């Protein structure tokens, strides 16, 4: 079942097209990661999904129902948009009580449960303005999760958290997805997103430039064998003569891009050693998500 569906979603501010004809769908139980540089249109898209911004064109469907003024599924949706602001003069408990009331919940114990779940018990009676940024982020997540939503829309949910907090939130989100919740999140911590999501979308200048599963992602991430010898120019010639695709990088390393040698780099070592240019160093380089992301954006520009 499609929990989120957008069809040709478009939003402009004057001449700037913030969201340009974006069509995506997110299935039940899926964790969907949304990547983009600052100003790419991520937050505009998230606000449009939450009905805070009205699109100029296209439509949003949540839980199979079109998002319009009659939409009434908000208690199935939890969200955290941009920085996690809270009422500064209220304690963690009071801040959550405000949303307990506005979400029309009936069990007061739900407030303490979510406080415990997000490890905020120690700060239950601490005013929000005295919390660290990481704990404010936890409070923001607590507001988003207090009503056990079926869909979570999170903008930078691990921003400001310490490494322990990142792991806790990651595990929490994975648990929620396992229990059937659908999660739509944006983050600039790309390595972290790759550990979480089932599918990734890349947005640039308002346009969706790539959408792929994590399996597709791993196949698209570039790999190469990098080699260093006593004379790289001569070594390249030897590899070219042996029908390998070899070239010199700007860091003065030889890169070999033949897929068949990725799992058998010893073949390259053997060829070079037999021709008296034994490798001083040889290793398999795997592109990280940051590089993949930047490369994708660069390719899109070209």
């Amino acid at each position: 079942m499609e929990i989120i569906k957008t069809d040709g979603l478009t939003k402009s501010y004057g001449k700037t097209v913030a969201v340009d004809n974006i069509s995506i769908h997110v299935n039940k139980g899926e964790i969907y990661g949304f990547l983009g540089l600052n100003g790419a249109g991520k937050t505009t898209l998230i606000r449009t999904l939450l009905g805070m911004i009205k699109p100029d064109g296209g439509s949003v469907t949540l839980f199979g129902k079109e998002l319009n003024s009659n939409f009434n599924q908000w208690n199935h949706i939890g969200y955290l948009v941009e920085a996690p602001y809270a009422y500064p003069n209220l304690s963690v408990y009071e801040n959550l009580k405000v949303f307990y009331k506005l979400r029309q919940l009936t069990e007061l114990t739900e407030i303490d449960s979510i406080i415990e779940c997000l490890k905020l018990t120690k700060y239950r009676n601490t005013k929000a303005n005295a919390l660290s940024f990481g704990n404010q982020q936890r409070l923001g997540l607590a507001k988003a999760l207090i009503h056990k939503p079926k869909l979570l829309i999170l903008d930078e949910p691990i921003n400001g958290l310490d490494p322990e907090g990142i792991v806790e939130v990651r595990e929490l989100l994975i648990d929620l997805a396992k229990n059937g919740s659908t999660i739509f999140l944006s983050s600039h911590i790309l390595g972290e997103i790759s550990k979480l999501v089932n599918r990734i979308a890349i947005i640039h200048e308002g346009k969706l430039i790539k959408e792929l599963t994590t399996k597709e992602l791993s196949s698209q991430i570039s790999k190469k064998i990098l080699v260093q010898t006593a004379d790289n120019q001569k070594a390249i010639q030897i590899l070219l003569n042996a029908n390998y695709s070899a070239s010199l990088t700007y860091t003065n390393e030889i890169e070999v891009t033949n897929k068949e040698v990725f799992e058998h780099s010893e073949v390259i070592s053997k060829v070079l050693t037999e021709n008296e240019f034994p490798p001083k160093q040889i290793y398999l380089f795997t592109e990280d998500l940051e590089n993949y992301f930047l490369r994708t954006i660069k390719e899109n520009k070209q």
Partner: protein
Amino acid sequence: MRQQLLALQAEVIKIKSAKILWATFIAFAIVPVMGGVFILVVQDNEAMEKASGFALKIKAMNFEANWKSYLNVLSQAVGVGGVLLFGFVASWIFGREYSDGTAKDLLSLPTSRTKIVNAKFILYVLWCLMLVLSNLVVAFILGTTLHLPTMDTSSLTGILNDYFITTALTIIAGVPIAFFALYGKGYLAPLSFVALTLVFSQVIAAIGYGSYFPWSIPGLYSGAGGEYKNLLSSFSYIILLLTGIVGYLATTIYWKNADQTK
């Protein structure tokens, strides 16, 4: 109805620990305290004979040491000062969501946006009513302590009637400020609007057109403009009422339909 009540309870939680709540009560209580000082001076013949600047001002106001004079001062404070203070209250209730960065948290909830705005308006009315009631209580305590002569019930009822009608008119005049708080996304725009209305209400009332300017009408009704009160007509009250209605509609329509990017 339950949704509306819950939204109001949420608003009450938000103001419970707010220092601004008590600050408004303390600021407004200056009026009955000052009135008490007037009474003390008027009751002291020696002080009045010295004809100090303060005593002269009190004489110019035709202030007497009785409940009528005292409660009239309170009414005038509501009609003139209330435009400022109630405007400040409205600015804070509506503008704080943007200043605190919490406006976005109120937009995609099972409690409708209209009910959230309504809850804020109800809180605004209750807050203003509590302010005028607290001033009455302070005045009652001070007046009794200063042995003001007792007043007959019908005169008291008439004065209190004027006091609460002035309050209602001032509350209505403050409604459009909510729109400026939402439109300006913070305190600056509504407070600037309040300052402007205060200046214009004085100037326009002074040149004799106050009965057509919504923010002058509460002051004129309270008697702060002396004989200008007689200029008020049904038309004046209709203008004020329409201002309140337009202010309310502009606020709710804006909150429901405008793009919320902050």
